[in-house]
């Protein structure tokens, strides 16, 4: 595919959010509604993945959009509006998670020292179409339960990078982590999820009973 390399000094076209943000700053609230509509689903999903609690996720989404609205003056155009918004939502989410765990420390570094999942153990191949063996409800339950078991520091990275589709750099910027830290967490998160899903998705015939990764 032919790509056009930006030449030195050439400006990238401004992100469409820039104009919306400008309109909001100028007092046009409807422009903010547009931003909300554009990102509410993603933000809710991120909050739900991190907090693992529906009520908290609702509150996080509300609070993040309200905070962003009030702090819009502080938003600098050098990062994307969306990543700025996500950063607020992630911080709010971690705060709620901490409250739920009644003061237990929840940080992005928690449990990341674990060796679990750093080496694949269950090497049975999966069914070519493993989703077929479960109803939509069952499948959703399996996927929710599985990601819930990840340490928060892995869950956050996987959610932003793989579920939401941010780049490694954006994820690093959003979480205040280095790029190598994001990469190492992402690999471990992916491998842990893989290991746990293997229990449900591996080929059925010769059911090996060595068990999962619990």
């Amino acid at each position, binding site marked *: 595919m032919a790509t056009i390399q930006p030449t030195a000094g050439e400006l990238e076209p401004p992100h469409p959010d820039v104009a919306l943000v400008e309109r909001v700053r100028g*007092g046009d*609230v409807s422009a*903010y*509604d547009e931003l*909300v*509509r554009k990102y*509410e*689903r993603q933000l*809710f*999903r991120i909050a*739900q*993945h991190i907090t693992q609690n*529906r009520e908290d*996720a*609702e509150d996080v*989404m*509300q609070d993040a*959009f*309200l905070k962003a*609205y*009030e702090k819009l003056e502080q938003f600098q155009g050098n990062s994307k509006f969306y990543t700025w918004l996500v950063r607020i939502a992630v911080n709010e989410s971690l705060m709620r998670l901490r409250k739920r765990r009644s003061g237990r420390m929840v940080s992005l570094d928690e449990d990341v020292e674990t060796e679990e999942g750093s*080496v*694949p153990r269950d*090497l*049975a*191949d*999966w069914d070519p179409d*493993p*989703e077929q063996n479960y109803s939509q409800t069952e*499948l*959703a339950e399996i*996927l*929710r339960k599985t*990601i819930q078991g990840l340490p928060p520091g892995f869950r956050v990275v*996987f959610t932003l990078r*793989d*579920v939401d*589709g941010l780049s*490694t750099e954006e994820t690093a910027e959003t979480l205040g982590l280095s790029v190598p830290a994001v*990469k190492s967490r*992402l*690999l471990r998160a*992916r*491998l842990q*999820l*893989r290991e746990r*899903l*293997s229990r449900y*998705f591996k080929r059925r015939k010769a059911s090996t009973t060595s068990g999962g990764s619990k």
Partner: protein
Amino acid sequence: MTCTEFLAMLDDLIDDAVTPQLRAELQEHLHGCDHCEVTLSTTRKTIQIYRSHELYDMPSGLRERLHAAIMARCKKGC
């Protein structure tokens, strides 16, 4: 290439961030190693399955509540 070396490059391979030369080396390892082949395909599947399933529906009415909350602040501010 050993399995450990392969594993260290797994993410870059999945995210398509490897040079053609490295890709060829990884492919070569895959041809002779069922374990890494399975790890690669099932890890890919793991990502794809999470990407393609919406696990949480946004509650209805949330947007309206949010809109109302924003309007309430706005009356004070603008």
